[in-house]
């Protein structure tokens, strides 16, 4: 295992009911990385997390967490991981405090002060039964249960989907606090692209069980751009451009979204098409839509 490496997957495949949900994924996760996992519904994000954490056994390939097979992790390895599921799996009859006390009983390094501070900041009603809490409060409680032992790897499946904007902002600030500790790594999925854009250092994009993009956020933003093309003559709708993701032609003007962009290619493209080309940077949401199209 390379230094600082927490997760490692090679040819990771998962088939459920004859459907290949994950199709031979290869990746590594290192300390200090905050990875935002993007993908449409059914892209395989939750299954990927299930396999990463040993909840499900991969059909093919391998997945190692802290150097151990994810399906056979020792207790000491499990103690280094925190997980927030997509739909909280709390017991409706137990209060928030009882949930936390139970979770704390499994760890020697449970940070009670941290949990109390976060519970207070996030306004989690710890004296209330989970069944009587709102969806957002339950989600916050589930997150507290995953954070109390200061995990080195924090995996969260759409952790902020049920939170209001204020709570989401607080939550993201906490994620950034954790991320500032370079000995930890965070992998989380979300449909709120803005949150990922604000917090993630790396982006993974999934489409139909494959990782179609994996890299740093800045690198992604630099490599996927939109070109505004203005030509003297009508532009061919079947215009072929290297790395073309999307093309809309309106007579003499066209809009093209390209991947693997390098600024040095601009002059070459202008010469090839005989048109004026303007390069526009894209936000993560636009990039996501273009890549998923």
């Amino acid at each position: 295992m390379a230094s600082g490496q927490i997760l490692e997957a090679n040819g990771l495949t998962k088939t459920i009911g004859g459907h290949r949900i994950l199709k031979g994924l290869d990746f590594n996760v290192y300390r200090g990385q905050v990875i935002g996992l993007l993908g449409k519904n059914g892209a395989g994000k939750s299954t990927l997390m299930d396999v990463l954490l040993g909840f499900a056994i991969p059909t093919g390939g391998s997945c190692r967490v802290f150097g151990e097979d994810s399906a056979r992790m020792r207790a000491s390895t499990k103690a280094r991981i925190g997980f927030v599921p997509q739909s909280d799996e709390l017991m409706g009859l137990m209060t928030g405090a009882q949930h936390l006390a139970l979770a704390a009983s499994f760890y020697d390094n449970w940070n009670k002060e941290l949990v109390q501070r976060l519970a207070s900041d996030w306004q989690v009603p710890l004296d209330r039964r989970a069944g009587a809490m709102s969806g957002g409060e339950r989600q916050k409680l589930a997150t507290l249960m995953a954070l109390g032992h200061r995990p080195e790897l924090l995996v969260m499946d759409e952790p902020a989907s049920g939170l209001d904007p204020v709570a989401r902002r607080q939550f993201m600030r906490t994620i950034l606090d954790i991320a500032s500790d370079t000995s930890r790594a965070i992998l989380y999925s979300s449909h709120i692209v803005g949150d990922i854009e604000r917090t993630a250092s790396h982006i993974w994009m999934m489409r139909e069980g494959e990782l179609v993009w994996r890299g740093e956020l800045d690198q992604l933003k630099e490599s996927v751009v939109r070109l505004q093309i203005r030509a003297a003559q009508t532009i061919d709708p079947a215009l072929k451009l290297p790395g073309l993701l999307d093309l809309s032609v309106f007579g003499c003007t066209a809009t093209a979204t390209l991947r693997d962009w390098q600024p040095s290619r601009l002059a070459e493209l202008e010469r090839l098409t005989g048109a004026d080309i303007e390069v526009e940077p894209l936000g993560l949401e636009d990039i996501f839509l273009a890549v998923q199209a």
Partner: protein
Amino acid sequence: MKTVAQVLRMVFWMQPMQRALLLFGGCLSIGLFWSGKAPPVVGVLIAVLLPVLTAGMFLRKLVAPRHAMLWPHGRGRLLVGTLGTIVVVTLLLVLGYGLEFIGAPPRYRPDTETYAMWYVLLFVLWSQCTISMFIASRSPAWALLVLIAWLLPGIVMRAIGAEDVPRLLTGPAGIAVAAVMWIVFIGWFLTVRRIGDARWRMREGAVAVNAQLGPLPATREIAMQRWLLNSGTPLSIGLQWAIAAIVLVAVQLAIPRMIGGDSPPRWVTAMMFGTLSLGAAAVGALSWTIAKRSRWLWLTAGRSRPELFGWCEQLMLKTALAVMLPLALLALLMWYFLHSRPVLPPAYLLLAMVAPVLAAGWFGLMQISRRIALDVLAAGILVAGWYFGLILPLFGNRPDPRWELVFAELAFVVLLRGLAYGRWRAADWPRVQPKPTFD
């Protein structure tokens, strides 16, 4: 140890009902100890009733979530906690048993061997109970399987011609069965990848979808009924309860025959009729569900609150009829063909069985909103009426109908109906919370 303490706290002290029973049972056992009117162990039994019945279910609820799979030694610790519950419960019962003999002449006091025997026997029994509840909490089908498994050792022993089966089952063979059961259970529990959550209740989302997309043309009334009855119909619910009652009665009939015991037929008869009266619990649970789910119909049903109450009340009565008719038919069959006839007059029996059903029905509808003190009082009266009006006379040695009690129960039914109607009229709809789920 920290986890064990948490599990014990959860099983004994987490809910108000647990705390109330524990305190009440404790006080009762002390009172009985001082008064000497009954064995103090009765109080202890009340105190530990919920832990005994719920430890297995709690275990499933605790290990089923995915985050529990990441707790270091999570399953092992929770299992030890559950075992700790069984140990504590058994210890308390043996102590309760011993209380009776404090101050007795030495020759009447049980020796250490007797205490040890009681401890082992109770430990075996609670073990079986806990594992059974763990399995049965998965789904109704598993519950039926557990019921069969409980009878299996008796059947096998009878089949192989073992003599004095009851003694064997409570002796070394019983301990061996329990030991094997624990070994198999622990082996499975610690190695299986995922342990499923309880699936006794249909998921809310699934019900909502079924309510809209069910196989029948969904008129508003049909859709409302599907929503309120968890996708069921009065007929299907009645059928389910009829099957459950037939199984339970058959088991009760079979037990004495299988283990070769000579239980008095009167006792078995009383037990069977007592079982049929549990239809009241089914009706109560259903009407409770109806009340809790009705909030979603406030806008969509197009009815005023009293109208919606009337409609839900009708549905409750239809369901109660569907549950009780097969049970009544079963009672008639038992009466005429099996000659299982309780000592009570038929008219009394009928009224004493119907009154708790109706009371439970309207008590459930009352739960549209809560008044804790009043609800606890009403539930207490309901259970007391059922117990003193039906169960005690059923198990009595001679015909001793308590007509005054049954008529009081019927008056109580009218009162509950009035209370339910009042609560529906005054219901602050947006604030009514759905029933908390285990999921």
